[in-house]
């Protein structure tokens, strides 16, 4: 040792260049060393679950500032950095993210946006939910307002993902997950959407409670009568194919000269009494010269022009009186201006024209006018009003089936029923004569059903 110290006493002159070497090494090596450590420390944290990670390196000391999601995760991250070769000290500036109580996650949808809010337990969950939302509502902007917090219920992932998958079924609304309680409010996008959401939410894991307050969109049924195109167009929903067929058949009978355009679709969710209400409303529409009908849930809106004042009153009364209980009618009915008068021969031609398109129907073996014929009768009333100076014979005919006397009586009664209708409509009684011809004036053979149907008829004969 003494020898060593004797030698060492002569080594001091080299200390000066050594100091210079030290300065040069520090000058050149510090920043590259720090960069190298920062890169390797960052790489070591790749699999650590952290948020807002910030690494700063001074010399060989690393300062780690980050939000961790559990105590174990925090310790693990620190150990990973400390384990990087060359790191001398790790300054711990990590903190646990706050615990949310209650833990709330939300998804809100309006026309143009989907906003995800509340808290997610981990950044990976947040990213997954965001990605899932973007996938299910392609084309709609997804806004991320989610924070991160501890305290999520078990199986948060699965439930939130299930809820995200319901977003496309919503037109607008909000989904709120509060701890283990799921609450959905708003309006379904389509009829049946509410039921589809309810069915999907049966799969929520055990322990979660679902309160589904999603409303179904209004059940819409529309009809539009276009006098120019001579069509009546039906759009919207009907409950099933039986009601569909029945409504189209009723429309075909009631709209005797219009083409029925059927664009109806079957869907669940019809309000109770829909078929009855729709039949009444279609009947009312058939009496208008032009008009539109909208049935939304239990509200019937009818607007358009009636052919004469009494018809307008009758239509309003029918709408408010004949609808099933609980239904509401809104009638906005005006009266079409009277058509220009015509002379007797034109009047006769107009009557003949109407009777080639439709015929007045009665209940079987009765003089009660079928309500399907009210549209035609209104047109007959309107036509009769155009030739006010003429007298009109209303002639009833039957087929040859059954007793002649009974047929005669029935034809007279039916003719009289029509006359009564015309008088109630405001035509002067003195212009109208009811005549029954029984089966004495057939226009076709009584040997087949088609011919007999043609023979059962009412005719209007204009008398000068």
């Amino acid at each position, binding site marked *: 040792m003494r020898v060593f110290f*004797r*030698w060492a006493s002569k080594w001091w002159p080299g200390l000066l260049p*050594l100091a210079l070497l*030290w300065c040069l090494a520090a000058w050149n090596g510090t920043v590259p060393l720090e960069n*190298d450590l920062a890169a390797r420390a960052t790489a070591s944290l790749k699999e650590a679950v952290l948020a807002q990670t910030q690494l700063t390196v*001074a010399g060989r000391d690393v300062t780690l500032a980050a939000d961790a999601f559990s105590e174990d995760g925090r310790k693990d991250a620190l150990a990973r950095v400390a384990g990087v070769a060359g790191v001398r000290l790790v300054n711990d500036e990590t903190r646990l993210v706050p615990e949310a109580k209650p833990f709330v996650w939300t998804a809100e949808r309006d026309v143009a946006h989907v906003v995800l809010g509340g808290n997610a337990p981990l950044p990976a969950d947040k990213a997954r939910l965001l990605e899932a939302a973007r996938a299910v509502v392609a084309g709609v902007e997804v806004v991320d307002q989610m924070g991160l917090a501890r305290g999520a219920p078990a199986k948060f992932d699965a439930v939130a993902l299930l809820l995200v998958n319901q977003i496309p079924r919503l037109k607008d609304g909000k989904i709120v997950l509060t701890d283990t309680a799921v609450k959905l409010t708003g309006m379904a996008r389509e009829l049946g959407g509410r039921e589809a959401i309810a069915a999907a939410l049966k799969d929520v894991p055990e322990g979660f409670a679902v309160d589904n307050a999603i409303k179904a969109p209004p059940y819409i049924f529309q009809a539009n009568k276009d006098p120019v195109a001579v069509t009546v167009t039906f759009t919207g929903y009907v409950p099933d194919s039986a009601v569909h067929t029945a409504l189209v058949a009723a429309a075909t009978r009631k709209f005797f000269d219009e083409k029925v355009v059927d664009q109806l679709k079957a869907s669940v969710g019809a309000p109770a009494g829909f078929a009855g209400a729709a039949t009444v409303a279609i009947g009312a529409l058939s009496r208008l010269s032009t008009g539109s009908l909208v049935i939304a849930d239990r509200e019937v809106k009818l607007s358009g022009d009636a052919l004469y004042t009494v018809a307008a009153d009758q239509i309003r009364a029918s709408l408010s009186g004949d609808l099933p209980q609980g239904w509401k009618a809104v009638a906005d009915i005006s009266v079409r201006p009277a058509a220009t008068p015509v002379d007797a021969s034109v009047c006769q031609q107009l009557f003949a024209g109407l009777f080639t398109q439709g015929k007045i129907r009665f209940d079987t073996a009765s003089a009660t006018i079928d309500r399907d014929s009210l549209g035609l009768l209104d047109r007959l009333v309107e036509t009769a009003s155009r030739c006010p100076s003429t007298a009109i014979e209303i002639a009833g005919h039957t087929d040859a089936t059954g007793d002649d006397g009974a047929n005669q009586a029935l034809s007279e009664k039916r003719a009289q029923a029509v006359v009564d209708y015309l008088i109630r409509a405001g035509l002067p009684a003195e212009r109208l004569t009811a005549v029954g011809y029984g089966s004495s004036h057939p226009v076709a053979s009584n040997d087949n059903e088609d011919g007999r149907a043609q023979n059962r008829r009412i005719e209007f004969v204009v008398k000068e």
Partner: protein
Amino acid sequence: MAYLAAFHWGWLAGGLLLGLGMGWISVVHRGRPLSPKMLGAVAAVVAIAVAVAAARLLPGRFGYWCDLGLALFAAYLIGCTVGTVLRQWVVARHAAARSPAR
């Protein structure tokens, strides 16, 4: 330390060579040696520096520079020792070769 050696091997090699040269020269150099008192002071300073580095008392870059300085100093000391031993051995062999000739 292994990391420092790997990262700064060039500078440490420089320190080693410097020491080797200094050790080589010091055997025949007639310069004034450091007094035992000064030598003790230097040893004390180095011991304190080693203690500070081991306890990691200096923060950040100062801590790193302290480690680097000690590493260079250690390389220098090793170089000096090896240089001195080598030169001693060469001188001794030279002297032995000359004395039988007399």
